[in-house]
């Protein structure tokens, strides 16, 4: 009797144990080692000694803040674009998938059956200067002959968006799928109609701003993309989004939005494969810098310091984001 009680009390901790052990061995210990390494001085030939060189953090930030900033911008944009693509996708599967739900979900995950590297390399073939996409457009005279997608920031952001799209779509699907349809019907019974004119205005503004940022980051000029994006935003806001969506569906989907954007943003900021394969020397990210510092320059302290700074920057961003969306609202919405 007593023993059963003891066991029952200990059970949660026992269940935690394997995961905790795993994290301690493969995360906490390496992270601690990395922290110690970041404070070393020396080189390959003289060896490295612990000098508690805290200055390296300041130096690394001063020297590499443009790459950090660029990574956060690229990762952020990729997250927003993945949301813009993933939300309609998840919504359609959850609400209109019918008998095909499982097939459609499988198709969302299907790219994961191929290696990350191969998927990105195949983008090089698809986006080649005279390849499948650009070749016909150039032949029709819609694009100038020198236009290219590969080796541009646009290709890097597009590649990251594509590679992490399932991470965004799946959590969104889960939270949308759980929504009780009767709540939406109830909203409609209570005269939730189209969302005009606010929807038109907000859609236009959001689309325009996103287009402006994307255009600037991708080097296509501030206004080339903002007009088409604003038009799409206006159309979506006017006809596709109703009050029931704004007041019921969206708040209930918040946990999925929160989880999906974190799962996309965190690996996207640290990604280096897309920038290496699809980018140019002007679009390399902090992950590439860390890799080069570690492997090519064998400057282990700086590489470690940069990894730590990146981790810290993401943690701070995460904290602010959780504050912004509000964890209470999250748990409240999920009930």
């Amino acid at each position, binding site marked *: 009797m007593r023993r059963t009680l003891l066991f029952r009390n200990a059970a949660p901790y026992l269940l935690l144990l394997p995961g905790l052990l795993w994290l301690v061995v493969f995360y906490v210990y390496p992270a601690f080692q990395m922290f110690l390494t970041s404070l070393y001085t020396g*080189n*390959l*030939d*003289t060896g490295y000694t612990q000098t508690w060189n805290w200055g390296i953090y300041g130096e690394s930030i001063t020297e590499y803040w443009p790459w950090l900033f660029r990574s956060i911008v690229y990762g952020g944009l990729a997250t927003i674009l993945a949301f813009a693509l993933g939300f309609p996708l998840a919504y359609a599967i959850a609400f209109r998938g019918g008998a095909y739900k499982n097939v459609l979900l499988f198709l969302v995950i299907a790219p994961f059956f191929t*290696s990350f*590297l*191969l998927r990105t*390399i195949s983008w*090089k*073939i698809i986006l*080649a*200067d*005279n*390849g499948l996409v650009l070749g016909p457009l150039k032949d029709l005279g819609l694009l100038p002959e*020198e236009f*290219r997608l*590969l*080796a541009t920031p646009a290709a890097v952001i597009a590649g990251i968006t594509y590679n992490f799209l399932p991470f965004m779509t799946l959590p969104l699907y889960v939270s949308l799928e759980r929504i009780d349809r009767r709540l939406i019907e109830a909203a409609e019974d209570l005269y939730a109609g189209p969302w005009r004119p606010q929807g038109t205005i907000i859609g236009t503004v959001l689309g325009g701003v996103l287009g402006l940022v994307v255009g600037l980051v991708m080097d296509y000029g501030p206004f080339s993309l903002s007009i088409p994006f604003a038009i799409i935003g206006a159309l979506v806001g006017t006809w596709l989004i109703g009050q029931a969506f704004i007041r019921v569906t969206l708040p209930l989907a918040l946990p999925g939005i929160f989880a999906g954007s974190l799962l996309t943003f965190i690996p996207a900021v640290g990604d280096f*494969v897309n920038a*290496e*394969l699809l*980018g*140019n*020397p*002007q*679009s*390399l990210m902090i992950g*590439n*810098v860390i*890799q*080069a*510092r*570690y*492997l*090519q*320059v*064998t*400057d282990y302290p700086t590489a470690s310091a940069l990894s730590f700074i990146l981790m810290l920057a993401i943690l701070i961003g995460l904290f602010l984001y959780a504050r912004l969306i509000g964890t209470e609202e999250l748990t409240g919405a999920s009930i």
Partner: protein
Amino acid sequence: MTDPQRPFSGDLTRRRFLQGSALAGVSAFLAACGTAGQSGGAATSTAAAGESAAPAASAGAGGTPAAGGTLRFANWLGYMDVTEDGSSYPTIEKFQDETGITVEYGDGAVDDNETFFTADLQAPLEAGQPTAWDLIVVTDWMVARLIRLGWVDAIDTSLTPNFVANLAENYKGRSFDPDTNLAAPWQSGMTGLGYDKAITGDQDSIEVLFSDEFKGKLTYLSEMRDTIGLAAIRLGFSPEELTQEQFDASLADVDKAVKDGVVRQVVGNSYVEDMAGGGVVLAIAWSGDVLTLLVPDQTPEQDFQWALPKEGGMLWTDNMVLPKGSQNKAQAERWIDFYYDPVNAATIEAYVNYVCPVAGARDVMLETDAELANNPLIFPPDEWVARLHQFRATTAEEEQAWSEAFTKAMGL
């Protein structure tokens, strides 16, 4: 020329393509398991026979050549002749039969110099322990680094008479290996101009790499010694004796070309796909790629060529090196001697298609495959050799400072 059966994609990861490529790792692992497992059974019997035969075999040479035992050999992908079904390596089989030594061949165990150094060599050698390999193949500058760190065992040249007799002249007394007993060249490659003749016309000068003529349609190599080497040659410097000022001047030109957008990307092996896709028409390119990779991908409108620039080009070498403290040093030396037999080198060369460092291999090949033997990309004529430069060994400080400066110019 190129064997249609040949899996040309095998060379993709041969040079630094993408560090930490999980894919290559898996295939290397499978390949390594394949040989070891498949030769394991035969080896136990031959090994037993070999040990008793050892004294007889040693009679001729000065030392005692090894027989029996094991040789763990780490090499790059696509660097050994293999049967069409990929199940065995004929030259390695021959070596096993002749010597009774079991070879555990790590095909692709070396994926790129930096990763191999970090993953396989650094930790054990720093601690004074033997590595998991008895013989490794790494590029010149990595050899120089290992020698500098004291992590290399000297080859007992009395056990390798073929190596002494048949090493081509231009490999003797290299700056990092003055006595020619620390590194035995395995394959070399030349760095020069790769171009799509259909678009660029004939090219024979480094100058075009620094001009606006093909702006945004040319790539540089991410190997510092290749790209800086060509930049230095263009300025009239000798890569064999590059000074700090000369390095700075060469780097400044590279930096400017990258900043101005003349250079589309700074890449490893992947310029090959970009050329095939039409986006890149001019590249700092390795000679072997044109033979093995570009030709099969060519469309009728494309005409890929490789040229050794008139100003000169770079010669790099991947070398067999004995990592310090391996238990099977004698077996590794036996393999070096075996490879430097021109007959064996020619067999491997017919498959590998890089530059062969073994004198006499060409004569052997003239009889078996005259076309290959006369290919300047495999056996460069003397006037080419005269134009080829080798990057000098660097000090520890230079190595770090130069690679740091170079990665900065690359946008990192």
